[in-house]
C-alpha cells in the first residue's frame, strides 16, 4: 500500500514550526494565549451557520482557529484560501456560546481580519469599496447624510419603481440585494443630537442615547420610539452631540485604526457628563461599545504612542461597563409605564450580538412577555444567525440568503404574525426575507412593540420634544 503524502509525526510538527516564522506581522494579531485555548473538541461545529451549510472543517470555528494557528506557525500563508474562509465567517459568535473552553472567537477573527487588511492584497474594486465604506463613509455623518439623500431621491422620484418594474435587478441577479436596501427616512435623526428629553413622571435614571450611524437615516422612527419608551419609564434621555459610528463594522472588517479613532471620539462625547448608562437599541453596536476595552487592549504602543494608549485603556475601562442594550437596561430597571393590551402572536429572533456577543437571552423575552395580550412563541433555532451579520448580506449575499431562507422556514413554522428582534441590521434582513418568501409576517424591534403598548394618553407620537 502506498500514499503520496507521508504521515506527519510529533517530531515533524515540532520541526516544521521551529524552522519557520509566523505569517502574521507585529501589532494586532491572533495571539497564542488566545487561540491555544481552543482544544479542538469540535463542540462548536453544529452551532456554526457556515459549517452547517457546507460541513467543511475549513468553514467551522475550530477550523478557522486552526488556520490562524497554522499561519502563526508558518505552515499556512495569509493567502487566497485563508482569506476566503475567514471572510466567510459571519462573526455571529454562536461558537462562543457553544464553547466550553471560553475561546473568545470574535476577538480572534477580528484580529485575523486585521492581519488580512494589512498583509493581503485584495482585488482593486474590493480594495476601493472597502476603503470608501470603512474609511470615508461610516466615520463621517455628513457623507452618510449626503449619500442617504441621493438614495432617497432614487426611492422617491419613482426611479426605483421604474427600475424594479424593468426587471433589471432580476436580470442582474441583484434582486435580493435590492430587497435589502433600506427605505431612507424623510426626517433624519441627526437633528436630535445634542438634545435632552425629560423623564415622564418621577426621574428614575439619566441615560445617554447612542444613536448609531446608518440608523440615523434609516431608523429614525425606531430611535424616536426608543427615546419615548425610556422617557415613559422614568428616564431622562440625553443624546450627546459629538457621537459617531461605534466602529463595529470597521472592527469586524479588521480596519482597527478607524475603529479606534471612532471609539476615542465616542468615549469623549459620552464621558463628558455622568450618566447612569449609555443605552443603544442596536445589539451590534452595543456589543462593540462594550468591547472598547478589547479594542484598545491590543493596540500597538510603538505605533500610536504609549501615553495615549494608557489614556485610551483607562477611558475604555470607564466607558464600556456603562453600556447597556436597551432591552437589558429596561428589564433591569423594571417597566413602570402602563402597557395597553396588544393582541398579537409573535416570535423572537435572537440577535447574535445580543445573545452571543452580550450573552443576553432573557431580557428581550421578559419585556415582550410583559405586554398584556401578547403571545410569545419560540421558533426552532431562534439562536441561529439570520444571515444579516453587519455587511455580510452584501459581501456574501448567496450564503446570507441561504441562511435567510432557512430562517424564514422556521419563522413561518411558528405561525406568528410578527418576528421580533433587537438589532436594526437583523430587522432589514428579516424584512427582506418576509418579502422574498412572502411570509406575510411583520418585523419589529422589541422597543417598537413596547412603544405601541405604552398607552396613548401617556405618549403621543410627537412627545419626543426636546428639553434643553
Amino acid at each position, binding site marked *: *500500500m*502506498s*500514499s*503520496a*503524502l*507521508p*504521515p*506527519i*509525526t*510529533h*517530531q*515533524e*510538527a*515540532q520541526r516544521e*514550526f*521551529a524552522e519557520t*516564522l*509566523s505569517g*502574521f506581522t507585529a501589532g494586532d494579531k491572533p*495571539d*497564542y*494565549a488566545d*487561540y*491555544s*485555548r*481552543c*482544544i*479542538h*473538541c*469540535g*463542540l*462548536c*461545529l*453544529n*452551532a456554526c451557520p457556515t459549517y452547517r451549510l457546507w*460541513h*467543511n*472543517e*475549513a468553514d467551522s470555528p475550530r*477550523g478557522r482557529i*486552526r*488556520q490562524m*494557528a*497554522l499561519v*502563526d*506557525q508558518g*505552515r*499556512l500563508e495569509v*493567502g487566497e*484560501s*485563508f482569506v476566503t474562509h475567514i471572510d466567510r465567517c459571519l462573526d455571529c459568535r454562536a461558537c462562543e456560546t*457553544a*464553547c*466550553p*473552553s*471560553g*475561546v473568545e472567537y470574535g476577538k480572534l477573527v477580528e484580529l485575523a481580519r486585521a492581519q488580512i487588511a494589512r498583509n493581503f492584497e485584495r482585488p482593486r474594486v474590493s480594495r476601493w469599496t472597502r476603503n470608501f465604506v470603512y474609511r470615508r463613509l461610516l466615520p463621517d455623518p455628513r457623507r452618510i447624510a449626503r449619500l442617504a439623500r441621493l438614495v432617497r431621491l432614487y426611492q422617491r422620484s419613482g426611479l426605483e419603481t421604474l427600475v424594479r418594474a424593468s426587471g433589471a435587478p432580476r436580470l442582474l441577479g441583484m434582486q435580493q440585494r435590492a430587497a435589502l436596501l433600506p427605505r431612507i427616512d424623510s426626517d433624519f435623526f441627526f437633528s436630535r443630537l445634542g438634545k435632552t428629553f425629560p423623564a415622564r413622571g418621577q426621574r428614575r435614571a439619566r441615560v445617554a442615547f447612542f444613536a448609531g450611524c446608518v440608523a440615523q437615516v434609516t431608523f429614525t422612527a425606531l430611535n424616536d420610539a426608543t427615546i419615548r419608551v425610556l422617557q415613559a419609564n422614568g428616564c431622562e434621555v440625553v443624546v450627546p452631540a459629538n457621537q459617531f459610528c461605534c466602529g463595529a463594522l470597521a472592527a469586524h472588517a479588521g480596519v482597527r485604526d478607524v475603529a479606534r479613532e471612532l471609539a476615542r471620539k465616542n468615549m469623549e462625547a459620552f464621558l463628558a457628563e455622568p450618566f447612569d448608562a449609555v443605552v443603544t437599541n442596536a445589539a451590534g453596536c452595543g456589543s462593540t461599545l462594550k468591547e472598547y476595552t478589547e479594542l484598545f487592549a491590543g493596540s500597538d504602543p510603538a505605533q500610536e504612542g504609549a501615553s495615549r494608549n494608557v489614556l485610551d485603556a483607562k477611558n475604555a475601562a470607564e466607558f464600556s461597563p456603562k453600556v447597556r442594550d436597551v432591552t437589558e437596561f429596561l428589564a433591569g430597571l423594571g417597566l413602570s409605564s402602563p402597557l395597553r393590551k396588544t393582541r398579537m402572536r409573535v416570535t423572537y429572533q435572537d440577535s447574535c450580538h445580543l445573545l452571543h456577543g452580550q450573552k443576553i437571552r432573557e431580557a428581550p423575552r421578559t419585556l415582550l412577555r410583559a405586554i398584556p395580550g401578547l403571545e410569545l412563541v419560540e421558533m426552532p433555532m431562534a439562536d441561529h444567525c439570520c444571515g444579516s451579520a453587519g455587511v455580510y448580506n452584501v459581501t456574501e449575499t448567496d450564503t446570507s440568503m441561504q441562511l435567510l431562507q432557512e430562517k424564514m422556514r422556521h419563522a413561518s413554522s411558528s405561525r406568528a404574525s410578527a418576528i421580533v428582534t433587537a438589532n436594526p441590521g437583523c430587522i432589514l434582513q428579516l424584512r427582506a426575507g418576509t418579502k422574498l418568501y412572502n411570509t406575510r409576517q411583520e418585523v419589529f424591534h422589541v422597543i417598537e412593540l413596547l412603544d405601541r403598548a405604552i398607552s396613548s394618553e401617556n405618549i403621543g407620537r410627537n412627545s419626543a420634544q426636546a428639553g434643553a
Partner: protein
Amino acid sequence: MNQQLILDLEHLLTREHVLSRPEDLLLYEYDGSVEVARPNCIVFPRDAADVVRIVEIANRHDVPIVGRGAGTGLSGGALARHGGIIVSFARMNRILEIDIENQRAVVQPGVVNSDLSAAVAHAGLHFAPDPSSQKACTIGGNVSENAGGPHTLAYGVTTNHVLGMQLVLCDGQLIRIGGKSLDAPGYDLCGLFVGSEGTLALVTEITVRLTRLPETIKTLLAIYDRIDGATETVVEITARGITPAACEMLDGWTLRAVEAWVHAGFPLDSAAVLLIEVDGMREAAEEHAAQITEVCKLHGAREVRLARDAKERDLLWKGRKNAFGAVGRLSPTYYVQDGVIPRTKLPQTLREIDRIGKENGFEIGNIFHAGDGNLHPIILFDARDAQQFQRAVSTADAIIRFCIEMGGAITGEHGVGMEKDRLMPLLFTDADLALMRTVRDAFNPVGRFNPGKIFPTGKGCGEVRINPLPLSGSAGAPPSGPTPS
C-alpha cells in the same frame, strides 16, 4: 498516482465534494484527540452508492480509507494514520425515517446525535447514548466508537441502541445487517460492527432504537469535603442494589474550572461532588432519591441538593458535559485519559492517580462516570514543551497500567484508535489479539479500512507499517503546538 486518484474522485463526486489542496488537508489532520495525521484527500459522499464507488476507487489506487463524522473523537479514530482518503459523512445527515409507534428511526451516519433526540422529543422519545459531545458528534461516529455517556449506567452504550445497519464492505459490496427488531436471527453482526472503529466496514445507514423519556427524573448533587467519602458512596449505592440513571464524579479542582464558566452553583471549596440521577416511575424515583441521600450523608456528604426543576437540572448537566472544555480555561493543552476499573476499587485508584501525578509533577483533575468505574483523569501540560508532552503521555500510561492491575481496562468509551494501540498487549494475550485480527482480516484483509488503529503495530499479519513510531512519538503531535512569535 495521487493526481489520478483525485481526478477519479472528482469525476465521481464533482469537485465540490472533494478536498485535496494542501491547505485543506491541514484541516483534517486533527480531531478531538491529541493525535495528528494527514490524509491525501477528503471526500463527501451524498449517498451509499457514492460510498461504494469511493471504495472501488480506493481499491484501484490501493490507498487507505478512513470514515469521519464530526471529528470529535478522543482517540484519533477519524484520522488517516497512514494517509489515504477520509470519507466525511458530514453531508449525509438526513433522518430518513421516524417510526414513533415502534420507537425506532433510520438515519444517515452524519446525523448529529442531539439533532435526532430533538426531532423525536415531541413524542416523548430520545436517542439514549449521550456522550458529552452529543451536540456535535454524529451517530455514525457513535456507532464506530460504541460511544457511551453519563447515562450508559442505566441505558447502556450505543450497541444497545442499534438495531440494524447498511454497510459497505472493503470489496465494495453494499450489505444490510441486523433488522428492525432488537434480536435479529443468526449471528449478532451489529454487535460485531458497532465499536469496530471503522476497521471492518463503512456505515452508510443506521436503524436505531428510540427510548421513552422517563416519567420522573431526580437529579442530586452531593457535596463532599473528602474525596474518599464520594468514592465510598458510589460503592455503597450499587451495593444496595440501586442503579442510578447516571452517577458522575467531579473532583474539587475540576469543579472550580467548571464553575467559572457555567455558574451551576457548584461549591468552590469542596473536595468532590457526585452528580447522581435516578429516573423512572415517580414513586420509585422518589424512593431511590431518598435512599441515595441517606447513603451520601452516611459517607460524610456535607450537603445533598435536589435539582428543583428542569432548568436547575440542565445547569448541573451543562457543568458536567462541558467539563473537559472548561478545563481548557486553566491550561492551553491537556490530555484526557479514559480508563476503567471495577467501581469497588474507586477509592484506592483515585489515591494512586494523585500519587502518580505528584511523582511526575502534574496536576491531575478527575471527572468520571463513577457508576461505571470509567475514569477520565485530565493531565495538564504545555504543548510547546515537547518533553513535557511526552512526560504527560507516560504519566497517562502509568495510570492505565494501574487500572489494568486493578482488574480494569484501557478504555471505557473513547476507543483504542491510534492512541492506545500500543497498550493493547497489556490487556490482551497474543492469542486474544490473534483472534481479533482473524475477525478484522475476514472483513478487511488488506488493511483498506482505517489502518494503524486498535492493533499494536510491529506485530501480526497484514498490518500496515508505513511509519512505526516510537512509543512516545506515536501519540502524535501536540494539539496546537506553535510557539508564540
